[in-house]
């Protein structure tokens, strides 16, 4: 799922300091699951913003809403009745959601309240770790199902580099060396010799390299 973390309050306040009426919009999908932009976090941020304003002798009118999924035009449409009663929209959705609101409401100031991070998995309750880089051409079949593109600091497809020590990446002891994991996995599967097959240079066109991408399903596209 897409993960995100709430922006520092000061940055959000900078965006809307001159506003009197705010529409604060959460999203009930990925950012709810990673506790960044769900209904609870909307209420928490609303309260924090209100207190910040009041501390400086001002007040602000905040309308709280949470859409089912902010990257769907139909759900974003639900903001329409309230949009012109507010000076700005603060969206707690991932980058996709924020931009969908912008696409729909051209003349309205829309600000992000979270920093979208990565596509990841729940390592344990309350902890999410990067798992996929969206390179568009999955090579998990070659590395025993563990991805070096997303989980190696240098994206090495023929790692490990010289800096791997005790199973950890040279960059930080917090980061597992993915090639250690791959090597262990290949050993477990008993196919260590697959390690020596060279993974050829990658065609990055399928990744961000090829420019912003689009998926078109002819059978579904209207």
């Amino acid at each position, binding site marked *: 799922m897409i993960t995100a973390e709430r922006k520092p309050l000061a940055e959000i306040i900078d965006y809307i300091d001159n506003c009197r009426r705010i529409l604060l919009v959460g999203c009930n999908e990925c950012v709810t699951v990673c506790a960044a932009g769900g209904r*609870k976090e909307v209420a928490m941020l609303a309260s924090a913003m209100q207190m910040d304003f009041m501390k400086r002798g001002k007040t602000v009118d905040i309308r709280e809403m949470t859409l089912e999924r902010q990257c769907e035009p139909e759900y974003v449409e639900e903001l329409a009745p309230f949009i012109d009663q507010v000076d700005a929209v603060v969206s707690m959705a991932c980058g996709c959601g924020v931009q969908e609101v912008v696409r729909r409401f051209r003349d309205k100031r829309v600000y992000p309240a979270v920093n979208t991070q990565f596509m990841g998995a729940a390592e344990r309750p309350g902890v999410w770790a990067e798992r996929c880089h969206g390179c568009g051409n999955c090579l998990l079949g070659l590395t025993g199902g563990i991805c070096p593109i997303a989980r190696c600091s240098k994206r090495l497809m023929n790692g490990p580099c010289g800096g791997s020590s005790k199973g950890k990446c040279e960059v930080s002891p917090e980061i597992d060396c993915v090639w250690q994991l791959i090597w262990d996995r290949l050993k477990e599967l008993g196919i260590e010799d697959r390690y020596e097959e060279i993974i050829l240079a990658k065609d990055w066109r399928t990744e961000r390299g090829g420019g912003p991408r689009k998926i078109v399903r002819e059978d579904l596209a209207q």
Partner: protein
Amino acid sequence: MTDHTNDAQSTVLVIGGGVGGIKAAMDLSEARKDVLLVDKAAAIGGLMTQLDRTFPTNNCDLCTISPHLSAGAREQHIELMPLTEVTALAGDAGDFTVTLTSAPRYIDLDKCTACGECHKQYPECVRFYPGLDHRAPTCMRYPQATPQAFSIDMAACKDVDALVKVCPAGAIVVDDQEKEVTRRVSSIILAVGAELFDPGKLDHFGHGRYPNVVTGLEYERIMSASGPTLGNLVRPSDGQAPKRVAWIQCAGSRGINREDVSYCSSVCCMYALKEAIVTKERFQDDIETTIFFMDMRTFGKDYEAYYQRAKEQYNIRMVRCRPHSIVPDPGGQEMRISYATDEVSGMTTENFDMVVLSTGFRPAAHTVQLAETLGIALNTHQFVQSNHFEPVVTSRPGIYVCGVSEGPKDIPETMVQASAAACMAARHTDKALHDVEENDEYPPERDVFGEAPRIGVFVCDCGQNIGGAMDVEALVQESAKYPHVVHAEMAGHGCGQEALARMRRMIEEKKLNRVVVGACSPRTHEGLFQENLRKAGLNKYLLEIANIRDQNAWVHGGARELATAKGKKLIRMAVGAVAQAGPLREHTLPMNKDVLVLGGGVAGMNSALSLGDQGYKVFLAERTGRLGGLAAVIRRNLEGDDVRVYVAQLVERVQAHDNIEVITNAIVVDHSGMPGKFQTGFQIGPRMYYRQIEHGATVLATGALAHRPNQYLLGRHKAVMTQLDLDDLIEAQPDRIKDWECMVMIQCVGSRTAENPNCSRICCQTAIKNALRLTDLNPEMRVFVLYRDMRTYGFSEDAYIEARRRGVIFVRYEAEKTPQVTADGDRVTVQFDDPILGRPMEVSADCLGLSTGLIADDETTEDLAAIFHLNRTEDGHFLEDHVKLKPLDMSVPGFFVAGTAHSPRSIAESIAQAQGVAGRIQGLLSQDVINLGAVVARVDRDKCATCLVCVRACPYNVPFINEDRYSEIDPAKCHGCGTCAAECPAKAIQLSCFEDAPIMAKLEGLLERIA
């Protein structure tokens, strides 16, 4: 008090409101039988309520017992008659006529709200505070006493009319007389307990003369937070903290002197250890604690571990001797104890700041007199005579006994007997099993859905309690202004009968659909007011209580206007919250009333019979091919009855009983469901065909194994056998014993060791039983018993005395230096050290009897624990829900344990547990529906993001993601803690009764600036 028909056939009389009487009354009321509970004291609670901490859990007893009591008073089936004694009895089982005489309380219970005004101004004659003040027995035994009332000692009152004026509730009745009333009851339970021996008569200990010599109970009160010294441990003589404290065991027990009794009171060793541990734990651990004892009798479940912990972790010093005397040290306040031990010849003296005499139980004088009135026999020690195989039955049919009045025992055993007595007494009530529906007394519930909130505010003044601390009138005027409030009035004593009636009238008149009561704590009175709403046709959850007494008036007594302002705010908060409250349904399911009993031993069979006789369908599943269990191989008990005959009769009765279906060779393979709706799968017979049984409750009576460790040549020499083999040999080949010349027994074989740290409780009695039968058959033979501690607790001490009188030689050995056994042809020689002679001994014996005790059937309990998710103690016995107050229930609702599966115990004690479990189950299965309550979490499917936070957060693993892809919480399993609601990132979960809306309304009510 509740008024209900004086229907003779359905009422059980319980005499004695101690913890045993209350438990029996509670079990009977849970089984929807009416109970008349009488106690000669002004409030119920008995001895236990004065105890500060109770072994082995060392927690304060107040919170474990008080829910029992307030619940007790509120139960519709229990009628309480304090200050009352039984003066005459006629009739017989099923239809007794009893005459009850009540002493005057001089207070009308309906009016008195325990405001304490009378006590504040006339302490000398109004009895209120518990504690060690040696004045007349206290009236309010402890802060949460039941009934919440005072009593007056008129004799000590100098100015009666002044006293009357001071009571705001006008509750004082000057001309209150002694009342006599006759009632017809179906059966009687005697639970009058016993007194603690007053050691003043023992002049060599000087209790009563020297203030620093106290009894165990007095020391208890000194340590208790609600005691006279408010919980700080000080020496009575000068109020200094003691540095050295000593305990002297068996004060007045196990003795032959003038004031002594011969029996052992079973509990003093444990409470002495507890007091010593708590002294170290709660006060300073540098206080030196010493216990002078003869045998440390910690035979209960896990009590031995408690004893070892006392020695190793708290290093409490143990001195094995019987102190000679206590005299004051001429120098200071200290007491000098002189004593002699085996190791040191001559007398030793030591000084202590305080000496605690561990006094045991004595039959109270009025109990002896009461027994006469009831026409029941007493044993030689003046305790109630019970039947060896029916421990709660007295000599007169229809009258049962439980607790210490039957014999000295600790609280868990008392609770077991209480439940057993309740089960036996219930037999005589003819109330059919499925009698009248419970809720026909309430009018139909008015549907308030869609109505705008119409709130009624009732503010109590509770006499001076609230009225004295704040301006109640101002509260009422202020409340009238709050949103949606259509009616506000003073309620005086809101919990009184007239106030409740008036509230009901106002609800109907003013069409109120919400009620706020400014009163005391919802913890104690929420149920009372909820029920009142229900009686007025309102859903009982449309209520909010503002705690303006315990959390306002009582804690801001000095600042009247601050308390008034806070009172207004608390009511404002309650009004805001109740406006958001909606009617709530309590979830119910039909109750399956069949019972599954696992284990066909004495315990299992007795449970099955007790339940079967009450009309319950019982499935008795036995893993092996036959019924009888371990008891089937036992020949005699200590009292000499033929056990084999008893077991045979039991098996026959079970197999003939039409309510009991016996299933042998049955192994449990799966289980699911909840109390009242269980399904358990069995594989039965050699072909292992599968059968599933539906039942509402489960009894685990799977017994324990006779321990046979290979020590002392057991199994390798034919002269070496266990006590069990010996018991059989004595019965089968008595003549062989005639030419025996010498016999040696060794105690604690394979018990109280590292591998099996527990004491098996019954081996000492078994050894004595066999020794007596041996000396009957062959008076000349010499019998040695090598022991570590002789634990013949209770009346079995008499048998120990008899054995010594017959010349059986008891020699103590230390755990570190066990006797050595070597083969010598078909005899064995046993070497051991004699501590008194101080030199090694060698005895050649025809036979060596090993007391090997019982160990848990680990393999069986492990499988069953896994299937039923039950927990066990480390050594493999099943773990009960509360070691003290719920010894028969297991922590998983609907599961009960009886017999040696719980812990090693005698046959009589197993039977008591079996009947007790039957009593508990009748309570569980008496309802026709399973009431799941209303405080459960509910998920809004539209908001749920299926993020699994609730699935991971719930401490009871209740939420799960259903096929429609949102989280679902089964109301039957939800415990109502609300963790999921607070963790849910999508705010999709609300906990009914504690939703966000009412909580936010309280905050807004409290913090809004504009009135």
